[in-house]
């Protein structure tokens, strides 16, 4: 018998170490599939979640051992909201337009820096919470 969820939530806490974003990604993917999101949308969610965790680990917590990244998933029947909270050694909300691939190839900047762009394109809503306490909080939403 298939279970119908009208609301559900889940929280995870991972170390600031690259590689743990894969474990978080897989857990959240299973959660979204159980909630009935399509496999295609869950693939988008997996990429967005990985990129948001990498940003939190690398740019928020500056790869500092001992610091954590907290992931909260809240489902309210029509949408799945994900909040990624780091311990904010550095504020990293991006205010500049990321370079395009053509500009990167032309040598105008770093090859990195496409994570936020991917999240914004794959998710229905995405952005930093401006009044987050004790660190950066990035939130994105996937609608049904």
């Amino acid at each position, binding site marked *: 018998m298939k279970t119908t969820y009208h609301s559900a939530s889940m929280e995870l806490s991972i170390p600031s*170490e690259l590689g743990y974003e894969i474990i978080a990604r897989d857990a959240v993917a299973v959660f979204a599939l159980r909630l009935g999101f399509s496999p295609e949308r869950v*693939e988008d969610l997996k990429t967005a979640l990985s990129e948001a965790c990498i940003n939190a680990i690398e740019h928020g917590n500056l790869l500092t051992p001992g610091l954590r990244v907290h992931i909260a998933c809240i489902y309210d029947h029509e949408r799945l909201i994900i909040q990624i909270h780091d311990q904010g050694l550095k504020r990293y909300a991006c205010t500049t337009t990321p370079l395009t691939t053509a500009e990167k190839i032309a040598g105008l900047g770093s090859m990195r820096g496409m994570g936020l762009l991917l999240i914004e394109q794959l998710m229905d809503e995405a952005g930093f919470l401006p009044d987050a306490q004790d660190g950066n909080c990035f939130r994105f939403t996937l609608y049904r």
Partner: protein
Amino acid sequence: MLEDELNVSIRQREGVSIIDLMGDVTTFAEEKINDAYRQVTEQGARTVLLNFRQNDYINSAGIAILIGIVTEVNRNNQKLAVSGLSQHFQKIFRMVGLAQYAEIYQDEDEAFQAFKSALAES
């Protein structure tokens, strides 16, 4: 601790240098991918096919490595093609603009059919 294992190998098929990438393409893949590209270039590769296999995870750091390869391919007047990506990662490659610099094929055989057709037309 959780570094991903990516297996990278190179081979030749009908004059094309193929770099097989099996596993996750992340920041940990940089040395392996760049070494493989350097090797095929030193061997005189004119066409390079990046053949992805069972790649469940390609992140923005992995994409950055591939943009670096595109830069080198342009500098060395080579041709770059990509095969074996899942539908999701084909979409990601188009989204970030990589598809403008490398033809994307479903699999290795489709890539070779296209190479042969292009050769016949030239």
